[in-house]
């Protein structure tokens, strides 16, 4: 029911995301057909080439799609973030089934049939068009069907690089730990996959050789006009507004709200058009997108920039870290603006009940009881230089078992429900309050500062100095309490990040 309500409330956005999704799949599948079928025909003529072709396509297929997006980020022309890179990946995935089914379809034709055609005086072109393609068509369409259905699934991941589509709801739902938002994206995606599968199955049957010329012509006409309509319609709906400021964000609640705050501030103060490319899949993707100019501004945390982006040793002095990061950004054509005012450091969290029962206040207190506890950490926390290893060393932490790897946002629920006893969350997480969790004090000052600061592409600020002035107005305006409250509004009261940002900015004015 809550899914239905979500759809009704977000019907316009849903339509756009659905159109973007259809656009991604339709364009990528069409291009994959335009490349894959001729490639398959070519390979079927040269049996020695066919095997390596299929092998290469096979390898491309086995690369996980998120990894593929990662590989393509720095590639010029097709790389970066946005629909272009997503299309490149989806085309690569679509090629394999299409090339393979074309090869199978053509080489599977009875030799005697081809020989009869050649013996009758058909040119290679006539043989291809009148005999080979019609007989291979059901097989080719079956391959296109596989490609399109796989495409619908893979396109959900495209949201990680800001290409839009129904994956946005899935990612948003994951970061909000709201299964109804996940379903709001997953259900239409599944229906779309079923629809595409059914539609192409129908087409496959209509195109079978047993049908007369006429009905095949009709099916071809229906298919072509449908593809044309889809391309045109979805292109219009998902077209990127030109000459606008692009605001990015990472893929968790706080970042979505900050993205909205930044976007709305620019809109209010400058009147420039702002495009939102929120919910990008992580620090690395945001950083690359900013570097390549695919986004103009997003909010980064000083400690994260220092260690994860610039690979420097962590440091505990907030002011020194901010200056160091500003310098490093300036060296790569980017500008660190004024800090927003709060420090989103890691928070070592336990259940409030445990903290009260055992009188735990600091991480030192907890270190005495952790040998009988289980811990759950996000993979990022386990890997980063200012993460788990250093923490365990500094406080002498040991656990009953090696820490469990889990999604950061899921770990709050895992802690509250008793699956684990200690997690590393964000200090500003709204769920801390909502789930009655307790943040242990970092009494040995292990964690470096994570001041939230907008980072912008320097050339954008030069071109639009008003953007800089607008964002400077946010300096020191957001406290940790503000942020925790806004996160709570999104995570537990299910308010829309855009609305939360709007009411926050209204109150500040």
């Amino acid at each position: 029911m809550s899914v239905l309500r979500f759809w009704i409330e977000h019907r316009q956005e849903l339509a756009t995301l659905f159109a973007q999704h259809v656009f991604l799949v339709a364009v990528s599948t069409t291009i994959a057909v335009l490349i894959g079928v001729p490639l398959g025909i070519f390979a079927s003529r040269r049996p020695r080439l066919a095997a390596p072709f299929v092998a290469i396509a096979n390898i491309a297929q086995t690369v996980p799609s998120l990894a593929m997006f990662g590989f393509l980020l720095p590639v010029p022309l097709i790389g970066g973030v946005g629909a272009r890179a997503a299309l490149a990946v989806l085309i690569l995935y679509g090629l394999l089934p299409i090339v393979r089914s074309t090869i199978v379809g053509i080489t599977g034709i009875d030799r005697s049939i081809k020989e009869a055609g050649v013996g009758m005086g058909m040119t290679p072109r006539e043989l291809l068009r009148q005999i080979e393609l019609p007989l291979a068509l059901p097989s080719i369409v079956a391959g296109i069907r596989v490609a399109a259905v796989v495409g619908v699934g893979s396109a959900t991941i495209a949201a990680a690089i800001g290409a839009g589509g129904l994956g946005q709801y899935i990612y948003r739902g994951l970061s909000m730990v709201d299964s109804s938002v996940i379903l709001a994206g997953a259900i239409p995606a599944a229906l779309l996959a079923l629809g595409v599968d059914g539609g192409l199955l129908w087409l496959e049957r209509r195109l079978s050789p047993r049908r007369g010329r006429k009905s095949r012509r009709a099916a071809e006409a229906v298919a072509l006009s449908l593809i044309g309509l889809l391309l045109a319609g979805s292109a219009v709906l998902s077209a990127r507004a030109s000459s606008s400021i692009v605001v990015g964000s990472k893929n968790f609640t706080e970042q979505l709200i900050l993205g909205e705050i930044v976007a709305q501030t620019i809109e209010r103060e400058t009147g420039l058009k702002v495009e939102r490319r929120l919910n990008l899949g992580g620090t690395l993707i945001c950083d690359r997108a900013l570097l390549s100019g695919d986004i103009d501004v997003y909010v980064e945390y000083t400690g994260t920039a220092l260690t994860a982006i610039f690979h420097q040793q962590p440091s505990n002095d907030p002011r020194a870290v901010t200056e160091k990061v500003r310098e490093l950004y300036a060296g790569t054509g980017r500008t660190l603006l004024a800090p927003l005012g709060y420090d989103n450091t890691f928070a070592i969290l336990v259940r409030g009940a445990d903290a009260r029962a055992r009188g735990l206040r600091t991480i030192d207190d907890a270190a005495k009881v952790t040998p009988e506890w289980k811990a759950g950490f996000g993979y990022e926390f386990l890997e980063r230089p200012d993460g788990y290893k250093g923490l365990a060393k500094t406080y002498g932490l040991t656990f009953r078992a090696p820490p469990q790897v889990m999604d950061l946002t899921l770990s709050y629920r895992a802690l509250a429900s008793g699956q684990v006893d200690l997690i590393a969350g964000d200090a500003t997480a709204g769920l801390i309050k909502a789930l009655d969790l307790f943040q242990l004090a970092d009494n040995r000052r292990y964690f470096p500062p994570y001041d939230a600061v907008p980072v912008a592409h320097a050339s954008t600020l030069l071109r639009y100095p008003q953007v800089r002035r607008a964002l400077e107005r946010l300096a020191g305006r957001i406290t940790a309490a503000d942020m925790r409250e806004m996160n709570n509004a999104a995570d537990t009261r299910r308010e829309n990040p855009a609305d939360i940002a709007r009411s926050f900015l209204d109150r500040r004015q």
Partner: protein
Amino acid sequence: MSGIEFRGVCFGRNGRPRILDDFSLAVGAGEVVALVGASGAGKTTVLKLVNRLLLPGAGDVRVQDKDTREWDPIRLRRSVGYVIQEIGLFPHLTVADNIAVVPRLERWSDDRVAARVRELLALMDLDPDTYANRWPDELSGGQRQRVGVARALAIDPPVLLLDEPFGALDPVTRRQLQSEFRRIQARLRKSVLLVTHDMGEAMMLGDRVGVMDDGRLIWCGPPRAIAECDDPRVRRFVDAATPPMPTGTESP
């Protein structure tokens, strides 16, 4: 004028250098020559040299007094009707569309194509109204064979190649088609080169019979003369021949 002429043709491939060895034969206009030989004797190669699916390694093959090397292969193949052993009807086309393939490639008008299809079906003793819109897999073996021949005759080529045309049929259907072939040939007078492994069929259909062994033509002459040949390689075929036809006149 001769329909087909082979002059000292050699043909080989890597691994089998002597598939045809100094092969010479002429098929006159309106004549039927039936080649007999064991499998691997090079019979199908002989046919493929005629419509330039293969080119000779040495010697010439001439079709209508023109070397196949000088022919445009597409024009040549459209001037030579070719019925392969497996017939090779196009499964995605109806009987009528199968027969109409070459006329349509030649850009005949729709009316002319339709009239020709009906004419050929009638010639092959297939009722046009019943069979024109059938699919190949709805036909019996004998009917498929007739459609294959009709398709080869579609634009009335002067030369016809038949590769084991009745090989896959039951004896009764086979006899029936053989006599029909004689009836049709009496009307159409094509230059026909026919390949079979059955001496009885060769003697019934051929104006002349050629016997092939290991890439060579070892005997060639009218069917009645073959009885007098005492080459053991030829006798082997004669002795294994199907018994004489009850209605046959040429058979000894």
